[in-house]
């Protein structure tokens, strides 16, 4: 009759799930903090070309994005299959780019207005003509810092 007699029980004790919510909450908070909500849905095809000599765009709040590419199939009926510029949620002409940049620049705080970068997200099948038009417009409004946004990879794969 020892004091420490083993409890005779055939059934296994249930695994406590009390800490499960904590674990899940931890994951939840992680994803909540890293999430960036998409502010505009893509209406153009956007297969970025790859490049190896790239620099990161670290600060998201200093970037204005311009998308260029063929309209996606659902918009192709209306807008055709030629490459188009997308600013925010709308298709636009090269002549609208200047106004768009000025408007976006006015939205940013004073100290950021001089350090903005324009990120050009251009489909690799687009032509340079439209890019030249955009660059010309950017020069007119003095938005000279440009980033040709690409994916990391071998640049030679763009040729195929």
């Amino acid at each position, binding site marked *: 009759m020892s004091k420490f007699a083993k409890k005779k029980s055939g059934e296994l004790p249930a695994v406590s*799930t009390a800490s*499960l*919510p904590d674990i*899940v*909450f931890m*994951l*939840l908070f992680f*994803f*909540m903090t*890293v*999430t*960036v*909500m*998409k502010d505009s849905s893509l209406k153009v095809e956007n297969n970025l*070309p790859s*490049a*190896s*000599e*790239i*620099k*990161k*765009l*670290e*600060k998201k709040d200093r*970037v204005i994005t311009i998308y*260029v590419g063929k309209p996606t199939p659902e918009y192709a009926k209306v807008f055709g299959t030629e490459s188009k510029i997308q600013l925010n949620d709308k298709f636009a002409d090269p002549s609208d780019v200047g106004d768009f940049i000025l408007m976006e620049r006015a939205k940013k705080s004073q100290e950021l207005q001089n350090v903005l*970068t324009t*990120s*050009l997200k*251009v*489909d*690799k*099948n*687009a*032509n*340079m*003509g439209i*890019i*030249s038009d955009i*660059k010309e417009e*950017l*020069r*007119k409004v*003095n*938005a*000279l*810092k*440009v*980033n*040709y*946004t*690409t*994916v*990391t990879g071998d*640049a*030679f794969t*763009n*040729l195929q």
Partner: protein
Amino acid sequence: MANREEVPKVNAGSMADIAFLLLIFFLVTTSIETDAGLHRMLPRINHEPPLPISERNILPVSINGDGKLLVANELRDLAELRALTIAFLDNGGALQNDKRYCDYCRGDRNQQSSDSPLEAVVSLMSNRETSYGVYISVQNELVGAFNDLRNREAQRLYYMDYTKMESIYLNPETSKVVKEDLKLKIKKIQELFPLNLSEAERN
């Protein structure tokens, strides 16, 4: 009144379910991406005529509508472009007693090619029909040539790659002291090999 002691417990069993629901929502909507790409500065609009540059200091690179590459009036393959550009930039053709003499160049010192990296300009010309993918590949090779040369000088002077210094400098977690130090070094290297790359459109 005695009953007050026994407050009924709230069943927390469904808490996990609710949290899971939220978790799945954020999982689906998340896109973890840091954008990266080739940085370029566009030239300012000025109406003055450009300064005359002697022809040997310009490396003309043009791409036609079919993605064919013409470097210094010869049809070339994209794979050769980097080596050609490095040879051009690093040439250092100016004579020893010239004030433009480049003492860190290791090129052929060919009199027909560029005087010094400070004078040399790579001129990239494209056509309206050129595909953007090809254009980026060419830009990538040109920037790569500059980076290779800058890395070489940075290794010689500071035992570190230029691209590495730059990525440390751009990293927001880097401390201020390190940044100040790197800023000077980066500037020095950029002065040795300035990114003289002009992009133009030719119809």
